[in-house]
């Protein structure tokens, strides 16, 4: 937990990996997931790097894998998940894997090809049979005779040399969507010297490649003359029709049909044999593929990581730079030692100084992960910045609950979250793919706390599904009031509204032990009482929350050694905030404690006092809360306003002064740097000079402090803070607004649905029957509107209060996450 408060110390580590052992070292690091490699070859394009050949070989293999996978998918087989831990294979194993998969793929390709060609043949045969079997016969006959009778006079005229003119046939099949175009083209191209009949196949055939059923149009074209025949053949070719020989005699056709059927039976047998063999091959693929896939993926990852290393001048070792948590350094050393032990030369890691901001590493467990997620989605914290997540664990559910306060609703939410928490280890729950479910499941601990806190605030508000519960006896006594003021029965009958006066002795016995007195739920001024209470509560919570945020800034300043900011920023900020709004909180609490029921009639108005405080005036009708109030208020305002110039000018002036002082005497920085560069990295080519340049540049930047920029930045910060104090305080009123809305909605739901249902039938039977659908409606609406919809809106507002109002007081969130090189993702 200690690491939750700020991100862990991360060091830049230089790894010297002996060339022989580099592969095993990096693969071991990938298994452990300790380090994030820095790219030392950023200026080198992807294909000029050292291990690009190996990467390419892995990619080739992956291509084969995709082919195999695709085949498996087509065969409807599921690949099992690989079992056990599969380390990245040694490079020489790649050859074996490659050979095996290549062989399998080749075999598969062959068998597939065989099967394909057999299928095509079969398809062809079936089509042929279909064309022959299709009922073109009678149609043809009529067409024939019809054509002849039409033609008789014409033919006779030239003297009948065409008597022996024979009608020729082209028969075939075409895809249905092409048929109309084909028909029209035939007609146009041959000027009508043909008769074509099209008919659709009754039974769809299996497509030889995809295996999907497809219908076909068979056609029979009869024509006269050889030229037209050639044209027709060309046209059918270009439409990719299957054209079959068509015998004229009925008997010959029948014989051909029989022969075809026999052939197709034989073919089917051969096909069956081929498919059996195919399934054998696929079975072997099923065994081999998953582990090989994981191994090659790891291998590729290793080579990609190695590509980020630079080579020492002697070519004896690779040099890598990586970010690693200081805590993990011993583990890193050990891993390197172990994995390079075989080679005789051991890999070394040592820390090197860095000018770049290290990445942020905050270790989370399943409980804190969702809270850290809330913070990270605003922005990943700067390195070693104060992490708001641990405080969010409490404040987030609490602020949510303030808006969602209802025992019943909170309990439902708590139970839902509890169910998820209890079932979290079940594989079925984990494996669920539904995105919405995953969102809820990811935030189960958050939901758990939100539900729990809602139960608590529900007790404070004394609301359970909008009904008040009286656990303790109420602090108000109606009997005492009735006795004291002598209400008669007639008076009671006439007046539906009665006033309880706390000033009458015995009526108000003392405050309710916990939360709101249940008697308020009967009162007509229930809402105005609650409004006053919730509004003041919101302001108090807001000011406390913001002040806490400002105080957290202290830890940032201390840690980063900017002590001047303590005095020049945090102190003025805190004074400004507490002097104005802290004082408002003080007034609220003071009035609660100080003004009793007896003096309620002449109670001073805080609002008027607060306005007068800024106007430096006083209104005679408004009694002061305490003596010397005006003097105190005037002092506070002057103090707060005096803080504004301090905040505005303090830091920039300080920086300028320090800068000037530093320039006057040359610092020892230069020698310092020379010392750094004296490290044994002189052997490194390329990156060393890069680093040096970058470092030098940064140095210059620091040296050239631009006053206008610093002033501008601070001015923006000041304006944002001062105006923010006002607007943010107002923003916390959303706590009041949403809790009011929630209470009113649940009240409405109760009054409009359940109360009507309860009032419907007097007899037990009727009431029971009626209540079933009514309760169902009540339950559904409670879950849909009050739990889901209202819950989401309250969640959103709580999120905003944390991101904007709380975190902008201290959190910059400009860092980036440490994303270690790990195989964890590939293992899945």
């Amino acid at each position: 937990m200690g690491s939750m408060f700020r991100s862990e110390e991360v060091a830049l580590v230089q790894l010297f990996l002996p060339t022989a052992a580099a592969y095993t070292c990096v693969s071991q690091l990938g298994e452990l997931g300790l380090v994030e490699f820095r790219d030392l070859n950023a200026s080198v394009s992807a294909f000029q790097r050292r291990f690009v050949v190996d990467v390419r070989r892995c990619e080739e293999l992956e291509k084969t894998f995709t082919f195999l996978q695709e085949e498996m998918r087509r065969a409807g087989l599921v690949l099992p998940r690989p079992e056990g831990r599969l380390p990245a294979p040694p490079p020489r194993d790649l050859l074996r894997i490659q050979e095996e998969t290549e062989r399998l793929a080749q075999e598969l390709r062959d068998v597939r090809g065989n099967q394909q060609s057999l299928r095509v043949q079969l398809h062809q045969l079936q089509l042929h049979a279909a064309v022959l079997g299709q009922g073109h016969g009678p149609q043809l006959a009529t067409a024939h005779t019809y054509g002849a009778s039409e033609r008789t006079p014409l033919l006779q005229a030239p003297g009948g040399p065409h008597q022996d003119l024979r009608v020729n046939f082209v028969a075939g099949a075409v895809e249905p969507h092409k048929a109309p175009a084909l028909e029209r083209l035939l007609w146009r191209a041959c000027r009508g010297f043909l008769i074509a009949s099209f008919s659709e196949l009754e039974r769809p055939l299996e497509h030889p490649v995809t295996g999907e059923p497809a219908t076909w149009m068979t056609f029979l074209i009869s024509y006269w003359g050889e030229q037209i025949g050639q044209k027709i053949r060309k046209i059918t070719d270009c439409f990719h029709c299957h054209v079959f020989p068509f015998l004229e005699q009925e008997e010959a056709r029948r014989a051909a049909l029989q022969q075809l059927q026999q052939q197709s039976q034989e073919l089917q047998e051969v096909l069956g044999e081929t498919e059996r063999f195919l399934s054998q091959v696929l079975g072997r693929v099923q065994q081999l593929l998953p582990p090989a896939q994981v191994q090659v993926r790891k291998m590729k990852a290793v080579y990609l990581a190695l590509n980020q290393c630079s080579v020492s001048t002697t070519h004896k070792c690779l040099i890598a730079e990586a970010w690693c948590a200081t805590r993990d350094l011993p583990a890193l050393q050990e891993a390197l030692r172990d994995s390079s032990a075989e080679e005789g030369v051991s890999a070394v890691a040592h820390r090197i100084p860095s000018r770049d901001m290290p990445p942020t590493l905050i270790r989370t467990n399943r409980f804190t992960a969702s809270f850290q997620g809330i913070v990270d989605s605003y922005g990943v914290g700067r390195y070693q910045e104060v992490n708001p997540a641990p405080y969010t664990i409490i404040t987030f559910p609490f602020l949510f609950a303030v808006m969602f306060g209802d025992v019943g609703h909170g309990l439902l939410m708590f139970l839902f979250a509890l169910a998820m928490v209890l079932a979290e280890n079940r594989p079925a729950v984990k494996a669920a793919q539904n995105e919405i479910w995953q969102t809820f499941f990811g935030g189960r601990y958050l939901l758990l706390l939100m539900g729990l806190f809602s139960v608590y605030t529900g007790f404070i508000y004394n609301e359970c599904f909008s009904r008040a519960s009286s656990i303790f006896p109420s602090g108000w006594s109606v009997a005492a009031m009735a006795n004291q003021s002598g209400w008669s029965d007639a008076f009671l009958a006439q007046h539906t509204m009665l006033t309880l006066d706390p000033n009458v002795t015995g009526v108000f016995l003392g405050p309710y032990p916990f939360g709101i007195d249940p008697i308020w739920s009967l009162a007509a001024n229930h809402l105005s009482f609650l409004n006053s209470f919730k509004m003041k509560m919101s302001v108090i919570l807001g000011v406390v929350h913001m002040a806490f945020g400002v105080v957290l800034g202290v830890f940032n300043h201390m840690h980063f050694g900017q002590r001047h900011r303590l005095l020049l920023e945090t102190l003025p900020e805190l004074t400004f905030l507490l002097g104005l709004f802290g004082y408002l909180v003080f007034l609220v609490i003071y009035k609660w404690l100080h003004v009793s029921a007896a003096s309620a009639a002449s109670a001073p108005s805080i609002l008027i006092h607060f306005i007068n405080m800024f106007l430096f005036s006083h209104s005679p009708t408004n009694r002061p809360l305490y003596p010397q109030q005006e003097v105190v208020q005037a002092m506070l305002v002057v103090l707060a306003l005096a803080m504004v110039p301090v905040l505005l000018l303090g830091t920039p002036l300080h920086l300028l002064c320090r800068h000037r002082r530093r320039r006057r005497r040359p610092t020892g920085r230069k020698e310092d740097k020379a010392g750094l560069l004296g490290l044994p990295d002189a052997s490194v080519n390329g990156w060393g000079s890069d680093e040096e340049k970058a470092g030098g540049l940064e140095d210059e930047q620091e040296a050239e402090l631009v006053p206008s920029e610093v002033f501008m930045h601070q001015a923006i910060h000041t304006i944002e803070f001062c105006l923010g104090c006002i607007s943010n305080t107002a923003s916390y009123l959303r706590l009041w607004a949403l809790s009011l809305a929630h209470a009113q909605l649940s009240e409405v739901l109760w009054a409009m649905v359940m109360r009507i249902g309860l009032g419907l039938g007097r007899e037990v039977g009727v009431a029971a029957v009626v209540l079933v659908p009514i309760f169902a409606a009540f339950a559904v609406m409670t879950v849909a509107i009050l739990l889901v919809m209202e819950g989401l809106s309250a969640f959103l507002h709580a999120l905003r209060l944390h991101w904007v109002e709380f975190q902008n007081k201290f959190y910059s969130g400009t860092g980036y996450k440490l994303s270690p090189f790990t195989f964890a993702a590939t293992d899945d």
Partner: protein
Amino acid sequence: MLEGAELYFNVDHGYLEGLVRGCKASLLTQQDYINLVQCETLEDLKIHLQTTDYGNFLANQTNPLTVSKIDTEMRKRLCGEFEYFRNHSLEPLSTFLTYMTCSYMIDNVILLMNGALQKKSVKEILGKCHPLGRFTEMEAVNIAETPSDLFNAILVETPLAPFFQDCMSENALDELNIELLRNKLYKSYLETFYKFCKNHGDVTAEVMCPILEFEADRRAFIITLNSFGTELSKEDRETLYPTFGKLYPEGLRLLAQAEDFDQMKSIVDHYVVYKPLFEAVGGSGGKTLEDVFYEREVQMNVLAFNRQFHYGVFYAYVKLKEQEMRNIVWIAECISQRHRTKINSYIPIL
């Protein structure tokens, strides 16, 4: 047409315009070209293209990689994008897109007819056809013997039909006639397309008309240049020029009389737009007239993206993509033939 296409343009075409602008943003940048030029082999080229928006479009190609494979895959990609635009378009954008495919269809028809003349197999030529200009009846082109045959039998149902009005003749289809047919078709096509854009009005007309005018003028120049020293008579030549554009009508009449490149150049001197183009020919880097025209085209197409709410972006995108493909193919050719001296003479898309 009413002013203010911006009011209703997005209702029908907003999605596609957004899409095409996104596609345009994925064109290769100058940095990409610099990297491509450094490649040693086609494999390197492939790896580099993988880092761009092309992604692993070559991943399923079996080795060895050839330039023509790259070209085909790139065309397929463009065709896929274009089909997507077309399938999601509404009138009148869909007509506009159909017009765009017509030029490719003309090229394909001519290619097939030439193939048939040289007795090449249809399959072989089909591979060379541009996928954007594909249509079902295309392969039947070789059964036609005269242009009117071609029209009556095959092309009457295609979008190309209206362009045939001027070129119905009973001449046999030999090489010269095919070339004439192509130019006549193209002329008719350009004129119709121009009219369509002009009638559409609005920003589309403002953007498309200059582009098409340039296209027409370019054709006129190229026809003139190619007809030097052939048997084509001057009158015939004049009938091939598209009758619009900056050169129309005086310039075209003069061009029809031109006899060599120098005369052409002296005609061009009257036109401010084309004078610098002709002056750039042969200058630094040995640019050809074609290169200069391509550069000018790229420039105009890039400018089309400066306006919103018009169809010109679709035209411009396809043309720019084509230019990019030409560039990649050029670079790939240079790499595969180890002819690195000229590798830098691709047309940069700025």
